[in-house]
């Protein structure tokens, strides 16, 4: 598995898209810092970018890579290698190279700007950690879609739909549910609703650090316990890990019984 991981990783490292992705984040970081002159404000703007763009790029890149390397995969399948290690190796290769572009691309301008002396370092690391989690989750989901669809066009369509659903439509439905059932106690429902969507979950996780004063404005015991203590942080990270584990398990499961 490690060999395939290494191969995928270096294959991607040489590809143009990794550089484009890296350069995009580098530029974003530099421009934000240049315009804002304030680390903590830049972190807030970055959050908006990360929770929308990272999932999108993860999904598209994952699907693209799978379809592009299909012939190579078939070649590998003819060799005496475990199927799970082929696909997991490829998956990790993509996910790790994307995460690296993200971390380096954003990290370098911030480090040069004096991140280590700033109090924003924890907010910033939290941002990078959630960004990495989102990359892992959405690349895994993309691999799932690609594994289940031979048709490339269909695969891409589903991938974009998945992103659109989790990034925008889900929140719309969520909001409608909350407004519709406003006469009922909604504490738990709203927290559970957040847990079920990795994008919402990452957003909440970052909000816990940034907009805590607004979040505390709501009177609800469950909310207060969730937002007021580190309990929220622990639960959110646990859920993000579950969100990585489930699609990865499905990759293993699916790849074992797929006909090529």
């Amino acid at each position, binding site marked *: 598995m490690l060999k395939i991981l290494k191969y995928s990783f270096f294959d991607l490292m040489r590809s143009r898209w990794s550089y484009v992705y890296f350069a995009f984040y580098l530029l974003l970081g530099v421009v934000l810092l240049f315009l804002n002159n304030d680390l903590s404000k830049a972190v807030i703007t970055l959050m908006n970018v990360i*929770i929308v763009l990272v999932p999108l790029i993860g999904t598209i890149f994952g699907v693209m890579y799978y379809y592009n390397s299909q012939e190579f995969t078939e070649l590998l399948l003819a060799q005496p290698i475990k199927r799970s290690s082929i696909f997991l190796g490829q998956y990790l290769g993509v996910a790790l190279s994307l995460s690296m572009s993200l971390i380096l691309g954003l990290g370098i301008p911030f480090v040069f700007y004096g991140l280590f002396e700033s109090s924003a370092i924890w907010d910033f690391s939290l941002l990078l950690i959630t960004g990495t989690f989102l990359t892992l989750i959405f690349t895994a989901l993309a691999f799932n879609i690609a594994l289940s669809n031979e048709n490339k066009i269909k695969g891409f369509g589903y991938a974009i739909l998945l992103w659109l659903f989790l*990034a*925008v439509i889900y*929140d719309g439905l969520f*909001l409608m549910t909350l407004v519709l059932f406003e006469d009922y106690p909604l504490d738990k429902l709203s927290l559970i609703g*957040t847990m079920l969507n990795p994008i919402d979950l990452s957003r909440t996780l970052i909000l816990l650090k940034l907009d805590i*004063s607004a979040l505390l404005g709501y009177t*609800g015991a469950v909310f207060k316990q969730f937002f007021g203590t580190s309990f929220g942080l622990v639960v959110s990270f646990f859920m993000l890990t579950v969100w990585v584990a489930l699609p990865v398990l499905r990759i293993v499961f699916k790849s074992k019984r797929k006909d090529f």
Partner: protein
Amino acid sequence: MKNQILFFITIFMAWSSIAQTITVCKTCAVSTIQSAITQAKDFDTIFVKKGTYKEHNIVVDKPLTIIGEKYPVIDGELKGEIITIISDNVTVDGLFIINVGTSYTEDYAAIRVKNSKNFVIQNLVLEKLFFGIYIEKSRDGKVYHNKIIGDAVEEYNSGNGIQLWYSKNVEIEHNFVQHVRDGIYLEFSDDCLIKNNVSTLNVRYGLHFMFSNDDVYQDNLFEKNGAGVAVMFSKRIKMYSNIFKENWGTASYGMLLKEINDAEIIGNTFEDNTIGINIEGSNRITYKHNDFKNNGWAIKVKGACYTNTFTENNFLYNSFDIAYNSNVNDNIFDKNYWSNYTGYDLDKNGVGDVPYRPVKLFSYIVNRTPETIILLRSMFIDIIDFSEKVSPVFTPDNLLDNNPLIKRITW
């Protein structure tokens, strides 16, 4: 004129010849403060030496000056009220008063001023108290440089730091109040000045007005209270250059205004509060040169608020700038700086060319269904906020700042 001066000199000399000093200490002839007061004549000075005096119900019934040397401790042993002043012209200075009794039927205070004029209460340290300094039906007094540190946990069994009841023209300056119910509480008290005080970590309010008119409070710091300042049912209050900080919690405000008319709120700073100012039923108030920074809600308008003007304030990085719960607006927003403003200034006159709408659709939704706060900063919310901005349906369509400033205002 000459005769007048002569007259005053004679009076002064007469006084100084009559006024004597009495020293109280453990080994002196006079060993308790109460006996010193009984022996003293009008306008005498009582010096209390360092030591611990276990006394309560000390009644000051003649014009005296009581001065503590090196903070003598007066221990009330939780038996009730400690000092009660019922005469005019009393000065109390430099005492350390502890252990005031707690009662559910009577408001025991460390020091109570009753029906008195020209009192001065200064340099006291009060600890383990129920009520601290209680001024009732008195006027023309001064409360300076006191330090009041309580241990209040619940509202129902704790008292206020400094309380004024039916009092007039009292100056409260440079006091430090912590861990009581209300730091400073004014009820039916007019023409008072509250200045340079620090009121922090109180269970309820840092400063509380009830039915009090024409008062001024300025240059105070209110930090981490249940709510910073509550101004209720009062008229013509002036609030200048105060700092309201970190009043966090589900029902916490920097400032709470209820049934307030004709007030002036100028030059204050509201920082890191859950709600900067909560306004209910308040009319003709001027908000000018205030900084609202990093609050959850900078201003929450709850209804029945008419002809208020908000000019030249800075709204910086609040989650919500203004929240309204109706779509009728009679308040004026003009020439403020909004950090969330996204317009442009083509003619470079420092004023944005597109009006700014401070009320977002999302703040309207959160007002209706508070749980939706969990969707804060979601992309979907940004989209609906944008569409509401283009064509307002739910938010008041005349609630605009027509001259939003491009640069932060400094004064």
